[in-house]
């Protein structure tokens, strides 16, 4: 635990998002809102194109924490604010960039991590934060 310092950076990752990923996520999550697969519908409500499920983006971003911690069950809390839709044009898609840093190490050993989640430099998830139980033997940042 002493090896984890406030400000330490977690390995950043890029997550490509293609239209087919959204169709697959719709099926697995049972969220079939046409905003996430129907270009005609998305444009009819004023969006530039189909947008990713916010929950898909949220699920992708936590990988930076779970891959670092080793045990994905160690994530005790995870919260985000959806600030900007992730537009996913076909066929080019979008790329989500996620970086993380240690915000605090609590007295009870839980580690607070701040995530920055951007697409083309613009924040798509704000106040993205996880609280994770990190075993002493892993998670060196």
């Amino acid at each position, binding site marked *: 635990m002493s090896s984890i310092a406030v400000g330490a950076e977690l390995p950043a990752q890029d997550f490509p998002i293609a239209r087919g990923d959204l169709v*697959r996520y719709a099926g697995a999550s049972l969220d079939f809102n046409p905003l996430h697969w129907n270009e005609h519908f998305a444009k009819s409500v004023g969006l530039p194109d189909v947008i990713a499920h916010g929950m898909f983006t949220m699920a*992708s971003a936590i990988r930076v924490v779970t891959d670092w911690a080793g045990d994905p069950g160690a994530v005790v809390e995870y*919260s985000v604010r*959806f600030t900007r839709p992730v537009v996913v044009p076909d066929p080019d898609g979008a790329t989500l960039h996620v970086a993380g840093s240690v915000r605090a190490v609590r007295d009870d050993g839980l580690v607070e991590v701040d995530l920055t989640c951007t697409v083309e430099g613009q924040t798509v998830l704000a106040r993205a934060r996880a609280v994770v139980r990190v075993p002493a033997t892993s998670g060196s940042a």
Partner: protein
Amino acid sequence: MPIDQSFVGRVYPPTAPYEVGREKIREFADAVKDPNPAYRDPVAARALGYDDVIAPPTFAIVMTLPAGHQVIDDPELGIDYSRVVHGEQRFVHTRPVRAGDVLQVVVTVDAIRAAAGNDLVTTRADVTTVGGEAVLTAFGTLVARGTA
């Protein structure tokens, strides 16, 4: 019309039991493109101290999103679903969801506030086993545009 504050604290009936299966967890993990073996391989999950494969941190949305529709569909609140967007989401886990769990969700209207001409409705979804063991709580904030 802004949504009436008096609905804060309203509790909806528990949802029908949801049985968490290994293959549903695998399907969800595949869909979020996360190859972690803890979601697929019981041996890998046991090595981390779990009885069976565990689910990704946001998996419970498959239960809490439909459960939250009780609030959106509640005619007394009068939320126009076509104007609703997902504003915030938070999960607080007592433990990870794992294969074999039989879970139910109790939804409560946690907060209602107005901001920038919108109504923000926060729902609290308490996920427990049917035996009453706490597993997680999910807070979702819905933004109902242009109602306040």
